[in-house]
């Protein structure tokens, strides 16, 4: 297997791991397990977290009082959920390092690869540090949301590595760029804004749970405020713009058709999960799936934006493995 193929596979693996981490992170937030470990990188001062209250340090209530442990009971399930999040983060760190090393080895074929993979590694490290800040700020919702949204940057850079290492036989025809290509970045911006709005809905629900002491989960819908209405209206824009992309690009190329099919499935999945969240009052299992769907939507749109093109019947050997537009 040549170096570019290895890098291509490694970047895909890292990207899948990042998507898995987004799902795990969403689960941590939905289950309220964020403060399961009140310190970072250790958990209650230990490398392996405690299984029961008996394993906790004797003065832990005093040490972590500012973070709520003066009154909060110890919950090993929450602690281990948060720990799984950290383990996945560590795995992504290792995968990013490997991707970066392979990109450096493949720099003769494409000088941009080490920069892209290095950028992804930098963002992964920054996000690791932001994980510590999330704990230190006692799960400040804006910091939690920023922590999540930084993963979109990692996905974007990894997708750039994946598309640049595609063999030239897989390049899209250049005519795709004449099919309203400017809509792809607009669709991506809308996806990011919509994800941010979704995170704000989630923030608001957290806030209500802490301060407003609602008597029943059913009443949350009436108390969230305008952000929920805007998020639901935004969903309509997301559907329209992605349907427009499908109509414009369908038939351009077999690989593009595959991407559009995936895009279609994700949009359907988002509509379904969004409807379930509203009608069944935020079931815990569906929340991370909805977030995962948004991340997958962004990743697929990034593929459409970054996929290299070639002018039909003029695939030059000079451009092997590199997009002709660069």
């Amino acid at each position, binding site marked *: 297997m040549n170096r570019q193929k290895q890098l291509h596979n490694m970047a895909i693996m890292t990207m899948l791991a990042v998507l898995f981490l987004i799902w795990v992170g969403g689960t941590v937030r939905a289950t309220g397990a964020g403060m399961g470990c009140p310190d970072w990188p250790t958990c209650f001062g230990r490398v392996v977290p405690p299984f029961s209250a008996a394993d906790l340090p004797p003065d832990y209530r005093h040490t972590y*009082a*500012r*973070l*709520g*442990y*003066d*009154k*909060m009971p110890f919950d090993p399930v929450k602690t281990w959920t948060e720990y799984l999040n950290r383990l996945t983060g560590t795995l992504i760190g290792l995968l990013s390092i490997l991707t970066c090393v392979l990109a450096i080895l493949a720099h003769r074929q494409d000088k*941009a690869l080490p920069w892209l993979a290095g950028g992804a590694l930098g963002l992964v490290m920054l996000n690791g540090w932001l994980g510590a*800040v999330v704990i*230190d*700020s*006692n*799960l*400040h*919702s*804006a*910091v939690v*949301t*920023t922590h999540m*949204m930084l993963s979109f*940057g990692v996905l974007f850079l990894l997708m750039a590595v994946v598309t640049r290492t595609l063999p030239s036989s897989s390049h899209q025809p250049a005519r795709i760029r004449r099919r309203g290509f400017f809509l792809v*970045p607009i669709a991506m*911006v809308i996806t*990011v*804004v*919509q*994800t*941010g*709005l979704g*995170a*704000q*809905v989630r*923030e*608001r629900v957290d*806030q209500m749970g*802490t*301060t407003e002491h609602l008597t029943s989960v059913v009443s949350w819908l009436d*108390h*969230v*405020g*305008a*952000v*929920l209405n*805007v998020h639901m209206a935004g969903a309509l824009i997301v559907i329209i713009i992605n349907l427009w992309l499908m109509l414009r690009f369908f038939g351009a190329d077999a690989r593009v058709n595959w991407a559009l099919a995936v895009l279609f499935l994700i949009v359907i999945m988002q509509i379904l999960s969004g409807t379930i969240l509203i009608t069944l009052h935020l079931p815990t299992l569906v929340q991370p799936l909805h977030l995962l769907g948004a991340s997958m939507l962004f990743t697929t749109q990034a593929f459409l934006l970054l996929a290299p093109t070639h002018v039909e019947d003029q695939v030059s050997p000079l451009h092997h493995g590199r997009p002709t*537009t*660069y």
Partner: protein
Amino acid sequence: MNNTHTKKSCVIPPRWRIRLHSWLGATLTLPLILIALSGAGLAFAKEFERVLAPDLWTVSAVGEGQRMNLNSVIDHVHQWRPHDELLSLNMPERPQDTVMATVKGPEGQVFELFIDPYRKILVGERPANHDTVYWLGSIHRSLSSGPIGAVLVALSSIGVILLFLLGQWYRRGQRYQQGSEPVVSVHGRLVYLAAWVWLICASTGLFAQITDQSLNSFAPPDGRLFASMPRDTLSCTGAQMDMIWWQTDGRSLARCMAPGSFGPFGTRYSNGKQDAISLAFKDWLAAFHTGSVMGIGGRAIWFWGVILLPVTLLSGLLLGYKRSRPRSVSVPSNPK
């Protein structure tokens, strides 16, 4: 064929287009990098503050009862600092936030006090010019050099717009010259991705400079909105109090945010006499300048878009350097 040839020879891009673009870019690199990085920092200043001083900003809200109300906070501040004048209160936006009171001492020094709203204790205090927002703001607005810096900031904003227009003009010339789409460099790709964010930030920032409006969300709006009312009449009906300012003559103004609102939507002012005063023009300008008009997602896009500006400038300089180098001509091998 003949037509194409004529077109090519007539519309060759003048060299000064790209030279002007390059020299303007090189001149503005340093101020633009400073403005872009400090501005990106300011967009997330509240979050950076929590990163740099978590002990001052964060408290535990788990299992706590009612938070202090406005009158209780004011009473406690007067109790802790009896000789100081209360300038503003930054009320908690989220359950785990502290209340920040800004007070002015008898000698004129301004301090920030951080109050735990559940336990009614003073968590900490510091001089106001020690906080991130203050020094990032002073770099961003005036590059710490007074009126000359302010002019430089205004010129840099115009410069970004000019750089974009010159770059586009050059590209158009290139397209005519080659008769097809020009090769897109990394520099061009970055411009394609983020130029719209720079243009929005530069034009709104420039407008604020010209009209002398502060886009700082902690600064009070127009003094005409303030009213003299007893403090217990200051309230936000059906909304959460975000900030309260006091003037030296005792007049006050509160900013209220509807629950679950985002950006400037659902935000209003209240001065005791009038409960719902709509936002000032500068608030909308600030919302577009920072991206908060689209919520936290918008702020994140603005942040990354602005961070890309220094990268684009440096990649442009590198591109200019590469193009100005004499190219080595390869000698073809002798065909047999």
